[in-house]
C-alpha cells in the first residue's frame, strides 16, 4: 500500500516536472519566437524561419499570411491578434518594459505611435529607397522620426464619410438618395448640426451616436490639438483650440440634443444599432465592418460621400519591426510585402481597411468595390474621394493619447453619464491634466 502510494507520488512529481519543462518550451512557441524556432539566425533565405505578426482588431491579414507562406516555403508566419488597439498598446508597453516577448512585426496605431517611438533604438529603421513614394505623404510623415528614420510602414488610413439610415431619413421627410444626402449635409459642421435639428424635430431618434465620436471627427482636423510641433504639451487650461472644439461638441450634443448619449464601443452603443438608437454616424473606412457586425439584420444603412469640415482621417496603422527580434531582415521583408498596394487592397476587400498606398488609390478593384450591406454603396470610390479630401494631418506627439483620453472622459461625463455639466467637466479635465505631471 505504502509502496504504491510513494510510486504514485513519484510519478506525479515526475509528471509535474515534465509539465513544467514542457511549459517552458511550449510557451516559447507562442511567445518568444526570437529565442525559439529558428534553426540558425534566419538571415539566409534558405533556413527555416518563424515570424510572428501582431495586429489588433481586423487587419484582414489572414489570407495574406497564407499567401506569403506559399511564396516563401521556408518561412512560417504566425498571426497574433489583440482584440482592440488599446490592448495592443498595453501589451506593447509591457513587452517593451520586459525587454522581450514582442512579435517580429508589430502593428501600431497612429494615435499612440509617437508614444512608443520616443524611445530610442526600439524599432528598426525601415527606410528603403525602393519603397519611396509608396505611401501618401502625410501617412509616411507620421512614421518618420525627427532624425529622418522611418519606423513604420503604413497599412491603412481612416478616411471618414457619413453613414446614415435612409429609412429613418425617409420617415422624417428627408431625402434618402446618397448623393442628395451628401448635398444636404453640406460640408461644414454647422450644416451637419442644422440638418440634425431638422431631423429630430420630426423623429424620436437621435441624430448621431456619440459626442465623443463627433469630437474625434473635429479634433482630427486641427493641426496641433494638444501639443506643439516640437512635442511640448499644451496645458489644457491654456488650450483654447481644444476647448473651442469641446464647446461646439457640447452645444450640439447637449444643447441641441442631437446626441444619443452613448459611449462608443460600449455595450449600450452596440445594442443601439439594433434598436434604432441614432440616424447618422461619422464613419471611417474601418468602421464599416463594425457597423455591419453590430447592425446585422437592420436595413437602411447607406454612405454619403461627404464629411463636415471638408475631410477627415481617423486612425490608421503602421507595421513596425522591434529591434528585440531575431529575424530583422526577414521581418522587414514581410512587413514590406504586407504593406504593398496589392496586398492592402486584398485586405480592404476582406475587412475594409482602406489602403494608404498611393498606387492602391487608383486601382480599379478598389474603386469598383461596393458593399451590399450599405445599399450597394460604392464604398471604394467614396472612401477614395474622402481620402483625397483630407487637408489637415494633425500632429500627434508622445502625449497625445493620454491627453485625448482626459478630454474623452470629460465628454463622457457630460454626454453619457450626465454627472457633470460641460464647464465642471472641463475643469475636472484640467485638474487631471495637471496631475498627469507631463513635462
Amino acid at each position, binding site marked *: 500500500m505504502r509502496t504504491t502510494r510513494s510510486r504514485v507520488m513519484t510519478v506525479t512529481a515526475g509528471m509535474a516536472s515534465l509539465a513544467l519543462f514542457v511549459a517552458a518550451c511550449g510557451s516559447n512557441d507562442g511567445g518568444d519566437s526570437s529565442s525559439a524556432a529558428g534553426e540558425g539566425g534566419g538571415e539566409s533565405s534558405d533556413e527555416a524561419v518563424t515570424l510572428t505578426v501582431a495586429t489588433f482588431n481586423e487587419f484582414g491579414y489572414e489570407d495574406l499570411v497564407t499567401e506569403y507562406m506559399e511564396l516563401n516555403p521556408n518561412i512560417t508566419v504566425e498571426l497574433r491578434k489583440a482584440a482592440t488597439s488599446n490592448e495592443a498598446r498595453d501589451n506593447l508597453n509591457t513587452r517593451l518594459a520586459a525587454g522581450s516577448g514582442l512579435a517580429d512585426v508589430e502593428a501600431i496605431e497612429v494615435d499612440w505611435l509617437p508614444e512608443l517611438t520616443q*524611445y530610442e533604438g526600439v524599432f528598426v529603421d525601415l527606410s528603403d529607397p525602393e519603397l519611396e513614394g509608396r505611401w501618401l505623404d502625410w501617412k509616411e510623415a507620421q512614421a518618420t522620426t525627427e532624425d529622418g528614420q522611418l519606423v513604420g510602414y503604413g497599412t491603412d488610413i481612416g478616411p471618414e464619410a457619413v453613414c446614415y439610415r435612409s429609412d429613418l431619413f425617409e420617415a422624417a421627410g428627408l431625402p434618402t438618395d446618397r448623393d442628395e444626402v451628401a448635398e444636404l449635409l453640406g460640408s461644414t459642421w454647422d450644416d451637419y448640426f442644422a440638418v440634425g435639428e431638422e431631423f429630430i424635430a420630426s423623429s424620436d431618434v437621435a441624430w448621431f451616436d456619440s459626442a465623443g465620436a463627433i469630437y474625434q471627427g473635429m479634433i482630427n482636423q486641427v493641426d496641433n490639438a494638444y501639443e506643439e510641433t516640437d512635442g511640448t504639451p499644451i496645458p489644457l487650461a491654456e488650450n483654447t483650440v481644444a476647448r473651442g472644439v469641446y464647446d461646439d461638441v457640447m452645444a450640439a450634443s447637449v444643447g441641441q440634443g442631437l446626441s444619443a448619449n452613448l459611449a462608443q464601443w460600449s455595450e*449600450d452603443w452596440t445594442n443601439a444599432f439594433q434598436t434604432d438608437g441614432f440616424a447618422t454616424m461619422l464613419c471611417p473606412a474601418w468602421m464599416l465592418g463594425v457597423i455591419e457586425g453590430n447592425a446585422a439584420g437592420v436595413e437602411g444603412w447607406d454612405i454619403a460621400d461627404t464629411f463636415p469640415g471638408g475631410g477627415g482621417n481617423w486612425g490608421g496603422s503602421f507595421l513596425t519591426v522591434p529591434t528585440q527580434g531575431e529575424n530583422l531582415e526577414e521581418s522587414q521583408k514581410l512587413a514590406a510585402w504586407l504593406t504593398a498596394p496589392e496586398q492592402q487592397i486584398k485586405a480592404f476587400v476582406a475587412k475594409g481597411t482602406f489602403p494608404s498606398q498611393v498606387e492602391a488609390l487608383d486601382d480599379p478593384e478598389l474603386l469598383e468595390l461596393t458593399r451590399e450591406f450599405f445599399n450597394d454603396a460604392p464604398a471604394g470610390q467614396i472612401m477614395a474621394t474622402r481620402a483625397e479630401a483630407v487637408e489637415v494631418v494633425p500632429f500627434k506627439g508622445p502625449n497625445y493619447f493620454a491627453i485625448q483620453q482626459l478630454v474623452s*472622459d470629460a465628454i463622457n461625463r457630460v454626454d453619457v*453619464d*450626465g454627472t457633470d455639466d460641460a464647464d465642471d467637466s472641463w475643469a475636472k479635465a484640467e485638474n487631471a491634466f495637471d496631475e*498627469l505631471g507631463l513635462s
Partner: protein
Amino acid sequence: MSTTAAPREVSSPPPVPKVPAGGRTIRQRLNAFDMKVSPYLFISPFFILFLLVGLFPLAYTAYVSVHEWGLISGRQEYVGFDNYLNVLGQTNFAKATRNTFSIFLISSIPQVIAAIAIAAVLDQNIRARTFWRMGVLLPYVVAPVAVALIFSRLFADQSGMVNELLGLVGIDPIRWHAEVLPSHFAIATMVNFRWTGYNTLIFLAAMQAIPRDVYEAAIIDGAGRLRTFFSVTVPMLRPTLIFVIITATIGGLQIFDEPRMYDQLGQGGSDRQWLTLTMYLYELGWGPQKSFGQASAVAWILFLIIVVIGLVNFMITRRVATTGGKS
C-alpha cells in the same frame, strides 16, 4: 481517561535524547544529523520560495516607491517621499479610496449578516444536507471575472435585466454604470454572490461546533428560537466572526477583478465612479503615466490601510460580539 495512549491521541515529540555514554556509531551520527538538519531542509523550499516571490517583492516595493521609476525607462533618481505625496494629492487617489471603502462596506456587512442567517437555516436537521450545502457554495467556483461579466450585463444601464424588472414594479431605470453608489451596489452584489456561500459554510461549521447542551440549557430556561439565536449562538461565533471579517477586509480592500471587468474600458468609469485602489495601482504603473514609483507608493499605502482597518475591525468585532450581537 485511560493511561494507555489511544490511537487517536496525539503526543508531541519526545525531548532530544542524551548522547549515550559510549559515543555513537556512524549510523547514530547520521541519524542525529538527519534529525537536526532535515527539519530545516523540509521547511526551506517553502521559505526560500516565499521569501523570493512573496516577501522580497513587498520589501522591494518600498525601494521602488522612493525612486522615480518608469515602466520602460527603468530606475531614475531617488526622490524620497515625493511619490507618496504626489499620489496622496491626486483626485483619483481620493476617489479610489472612497470607492474602495464604499464597495467594501456595502459588500461585507450584508454578506456577513446573510451568511450567518443562511447558516442558521442550514444548521437544522434538514434532509439532503450535502446538496443544500453544495448548492450554497456553487458561486464560489465561478471566476470573479466571469461573475463580473455576467452581472455587468444584468446591471446594464439601458438594456439590463435588473432595470427591466425594476420597471415592472414601477421604479425608474437606475444608471448602474453612470452613478457612484449604484455602481458600488452592483459591484458589491458580485462580491456577495461569490463569497456568501463560502462564508455561510464557515459559520455553519462554527455553529455545529457549539455543544448541544448549551442549547438544551437555553431551551430549559424557556428561551424561544430567536432569543436563543441572538443570546447564545452569535456570541459563540465570535472567533469565527473575527476570522471572516478580517479575511473579508483583506480581500475586499484589494478588489480588482470585478470593478475592472465592470466595463470594457477598465478605467472605473469616466468620472472614476468605481475605480478601486488596486485598479488605481495598475493604472499608475501600466497606464499612461507608466510610473512604477507611484504605483509602489499606492501599494504601500494600501497595505497600511489594510493593516489599520484590519485591526479596527478586529476590535469592533470583539466588542460587538461580546455584547451579544444585538443589544
